[in-house]
């Protein structure tokens, strides 16, 4: 086949797109052609590392002179196309059948800045970017271990998105790894957008609870890798999926490990209380004022009654209006630029909050309840869980309005049963409550000092349990 025809064949295969660049040059005394996608490749790099050395080449193989790190020699056109689409440069020589491929991908990565939605006070302020290579390098740099294993998959028949599964080979359970890989490889889809993956591989799609932890924080991913969990990186998405998780993983913030353990334990308990508040409080209030007012303390009864007198709605309707208004304000505020967002906050919080009471539509007590509920749901360190909990309170409110405290009991029972049954990659989601592992409350419910956390959590069933050797022996050393 002549050079011309070969070039055309490649172009044909790439749908004659306008960003295909073709550069003719002389090499080893014959005509050669470079083909690459302008939109993907770094042209300076091509000039410096590929064109210049090739022009000087008198004899021998181009493989020996091109300064590119990655070089492939392929015969198959299909494979050549695949590489071109990943930012490689193709060299065709008139008299040679071989297709030479050199990597020249343009590096486009933003700074690893702290993610907006997972800010912390102390600790590293570093987050992932949209560039998978950069993300992996962030991890690799901080876990300098021969055991860190990365394996890659390309998903999406058309998008061909790179997915990297990372885990510690000496910690992560092989059964778990097998499961993760099996689920990833069985995805058959045209387009794998970042964010799709979670829905493809989670166990119970009907559950309101997220079954993979979604994070943009490098330190969080590293901590989880070191617990024997698996991290899944997706190209183009700064958020990394972590599996398997338990409910309490969502309530741990990396902040906890950077402040004193008493403070962190206190905050952990506050968060767990807020977990209940966030979906129970409006329900309890509804149950109290419409079924069991005798359970309220004496003076509170009169207070609440006073504020309820003029309200035209049933407490459920009252709560639903206020909760929905709050969701509206929240949703409206998210997508607006921050300056307009503030206005929304003022309009929503102050104007609506005040006017709605003065107009006598909603009672003050309800405003307080809704506000506490909202704050309690925002305390959750992870966005996904925060949303899940916020959603849960609506059925709970309904149950309370239908059956009072009995309804709340039913609702809570169903919820707890669901949590006990839920699994994340075959591992218990409600651990360490079910199965009950009191030892692990040290790090799940409270946060004990790091040196006392001698063993890793058994939730991901790691290969090696010990994580801290006795590190404070100097305390017993008298010769000091």
């Amino acid at each position, binding site marked *: 086949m002549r050079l011309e025809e070969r070039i055309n064949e490649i172009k044909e295969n790439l749908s004659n797109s306008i960003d295909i660049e073709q550069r003719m040059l002389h090499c080893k005394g014959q005509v050669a052609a470079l083909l690459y996608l302008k939109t993907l490749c770094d042209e300076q790099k091509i000039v410096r590392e590929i064109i210049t050395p090739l022009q000087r080449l008198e004899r021998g193989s181009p493989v020996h002179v091109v300064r590119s790190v990655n070089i492939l020699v392929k015969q198959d056109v299909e494979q050549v196309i695949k590489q071109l689409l990943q930012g490689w440069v193709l060299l065709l020589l008139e008299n040679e059948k071989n297709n030479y491929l050199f990597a020249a991908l343009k590096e486009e990565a933003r700074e690893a800045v702290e993610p907006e939605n997972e800010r912390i006070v102390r600790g590293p302020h570093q987050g992932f970017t949209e560039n998978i290579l950069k993300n992996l390098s962030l991890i690799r740099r901080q876990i300098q271990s021969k055991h860190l294993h990365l394996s890659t998959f390309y998903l999406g028949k058309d998008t061909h998105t790179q997915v990297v599964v990372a885990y510690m080979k000496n910690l992560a359970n092989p059964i778990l790894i097998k499961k993760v890989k099996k689920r990833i490889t069985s995805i058959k889809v045209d387009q794998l957008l970042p964010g799709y993956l979670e829905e493809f591989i989670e166990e119970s799609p009907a559950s309101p609870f997220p079954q993979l932890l979604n994070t943009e924080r490098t330190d969080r991913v590293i901590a989880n890798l070191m617990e024997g969990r698996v991290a899944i990186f997706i190209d183009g998405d700064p958020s990394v999926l972590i599996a398997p998780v338990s409910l309490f993983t969502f309530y741990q913030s990396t902040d906890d490990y950077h402040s004193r353990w008493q403070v962190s334990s206190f905050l952990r308990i506050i968060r767990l209380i807020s977990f209940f508040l966030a979906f129970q409080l409006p329900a309890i209030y509804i149950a109290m*004022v419409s079924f069991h007012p005798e359970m309220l303390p004496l003076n509170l009864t009169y207070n609440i009654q006073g504020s309820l007198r003029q309200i035209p709605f049933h407490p459920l309707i009252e709560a639903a209006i206020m909760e929905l208004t709050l969701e509206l304000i929240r949703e409206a505020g998210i997508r607006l630029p921050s300056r307009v967002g503030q206005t929304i906050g003022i309009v929503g919080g102050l104007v609506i909050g005040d006017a709605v009471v003065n107009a006598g539509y909603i009672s003050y007590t309800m405003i307080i309840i809704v506000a506490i509920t909202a704050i309690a749901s925002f305390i959750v360190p992870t966005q996904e869980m925060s949303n899940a909990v916020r959603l849960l309170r609506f059925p709970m409110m309904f149950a309370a309005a*239908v*059956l009072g405290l009995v309804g709340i009991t039913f609702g809570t029972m169903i919820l707890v049963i669901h949590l006990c049954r839920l699994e994340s990659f075959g591992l218990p989601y409600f651990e360490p409550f079910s199965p009950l592992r009191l030892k692990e409350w040290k790090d799940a419910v409270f946060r004990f000092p790091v040196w006392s956390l001698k063993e890793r959590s058994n939730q991901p069933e790691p290969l090696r349990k010990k994580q801290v050797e006795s590190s404070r022996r100097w305390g017993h050393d008298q010769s000091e």
Partner: protein
Amino acid sequence: MKRLKLFLMLLVLIFPLFLLGCWDQDQLKQARLVYTIALDQASGGQLLGSFVVRNTTSHTQQIETNNTIYYAKGRSMREMSQAVSASLNGRLRVFKFRVLLLSEKLARTQDLYPLLDSFYREPKSPLNAKVGIVKGEANEVVQHQKIGTTLIGEYLDQLIEGEEKLSVISPQDIQSICPLMFDPGEDFSLPYFEVKGNEVEVVGAAMMRGQRMVGSLSRVESKLLQMMRGKNDGTALVSLAIPMTNVHSAVNRVSFEIMKSSPEIELRVRRNHLDVYYKLGLKINVKEYPPANLDSPKEVSKLNRYIEKILKDRCKHLFAKMQKHQFDGLGIGRQIIAYHNDEWKHMNYKEVYTHANFYPTIHVESKGNGIIY
């Protein structure tokens, strides 16, 4: 077809869920809460109930409360509350009920339990509500509406609570008097109110024998009874006159707080004869003692002996009074039931009690005298 059937079946299962609760609901918004009920005797064997309903109205940010009194006649509590409901804009609810007042006349002539029956029967009723007896008409008390700036029901509630804390009256509520009403071996006392001008005072305690009032105790006597029962830990303050060396002063009282009173009752029961050996150990804390000479142990023990003597006399008097009314405030009958059951079975207890001999011994120990001697 099959799917439609399943869908309909699900609907049938779900709809009842929405229907539940209608009958079960007890909206706070619609509840008209009774705070106090005063019961008097009306003509023709009827009762006159004064229901104090507390209203709360909110003017945007401020919550105002005021009382409305509804009067109703009837032969029972339920009959009266029905009569009240007829003129009430909402549901009459008693779950935040605090104080039940009975006129003395009613308490002396009618059994207490039938009046309280509806409270025991209703699951939502407040069993920690107080019961009090009023000298004269009970509705006179609630007609005061406000005492100072406090609404009457709240005032009574706080008054009783305060007096209980000072061990002036025994802490009793609807729940705690229930077994005592039917206990042949122990009687109870209830706070005894009197209207004095614009104020309502606790003037002492009403002695309840079984379900009826039989007499009253003064504040001092009631406090003494609490002490004799060993039920006044901490806050009971007793003042006694002392013979003073300094005759120029009009203040000649010793006041002391009873820190701990530990009574022991020993009984000797022979057929229809009862001897009560009553031993009381008191630990006191002197709060006021103008002679101020407690630095010498001799003076301390002199004071102790003096207090013992006076208290012994008072105990004897009180016991005699209780005997006269056949009011067993110390629960001696309970002890006979427990330790001398055979005798109990063949005994007309009230009769025996009236003629029982009472031998008190009191031992006082000063445990403190403040920061001066």
